[in-house]
């Protein structure tokens, strides 16, 4: 157990030693500005990411459509040739 008197003494020492400290104003303002700047950059980067994703999706869809058209054209071409050879 710890005596009441010793507790008070120890608590007094702790309250004198552990006092709130004010960080440097330049540090607080500087960091605040850097954070605001970073936030802006992150937003721009986020917008950039969305643009990239949309472009990728559009590219994939266009490629798929192109491949489907090419496949259909090839199929029709082969079908016509097959029918031609059958007639001959």
């Amino acid at each position, binding site marked *: 157990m*710890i005596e009441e008197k*010793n507790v008070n003494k*120890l608590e007094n*020492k702790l309250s*004198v030693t*552990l006092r709130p*400290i004010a960080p*440097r104003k330049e540090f607080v303002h500087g960091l605040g500005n850097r954070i605001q700047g*970073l936030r802006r950059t992150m937003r721009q980067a986020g917008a950039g990411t969305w643009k990239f994703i949309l472009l990728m999706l559009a590219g994939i869809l266009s490629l798929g459509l192109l491949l489907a058209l090419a496949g259909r054209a090839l199929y029709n071409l082969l079908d016509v040739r097959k029918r031609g050879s059958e007639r001959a």
Partner: protein
Amino acid sequence: MPEPKEEETLALASQGDKEAFGILYERYVERIFNYVYYRTGNVHDAEDLTARVFYRALHHIQNYTDRGVPFSAWLYRIAHNLVANWHRDRSRHQEIPLSDAPTLHYKGAAPETAVVQTQDQEALLRIIRHLPSERQHLLILKFVEHLSNAEIGQIMGRSEGAVKSLYHRTLLALRDELEGVDIVGD
């Protein structure tokens, strides 16, 4: 103008609101700085780690979910992890002490009253820094922040009774350590 409510500010900040995160920063920067300063004992590292706490918070604020614990608990957890990494890195590499450390002042004190610790206070701080991190955290919240046991419990994720008991054990540990260096007896 009245300060916006914490929940509203948090909701806005997590949606990417620049102003809201700025408000949270202004509200907590001193508290986080004090926590890191007393855990590291070094102004340069305290500033560096405080900056990293807020960068990390900024990057992860979208994932923050309100589970009924104060926002400060989330920030303190980030700070705790960074301080733990700092101690680990420091034990691996020999640090060269910096002599051009900026002068700090006690909060509310006159600008010319710089933070000066007596030998006894320095010895006590050294002992505190050797305590387990949760005990250091408790002492900082109690004496630097002047929070009640209930508030400390909310931040540390413990019950009020558990905080009280941890505080008592911390005082016992401190008394034992201080007896060794003959500070408590004077």
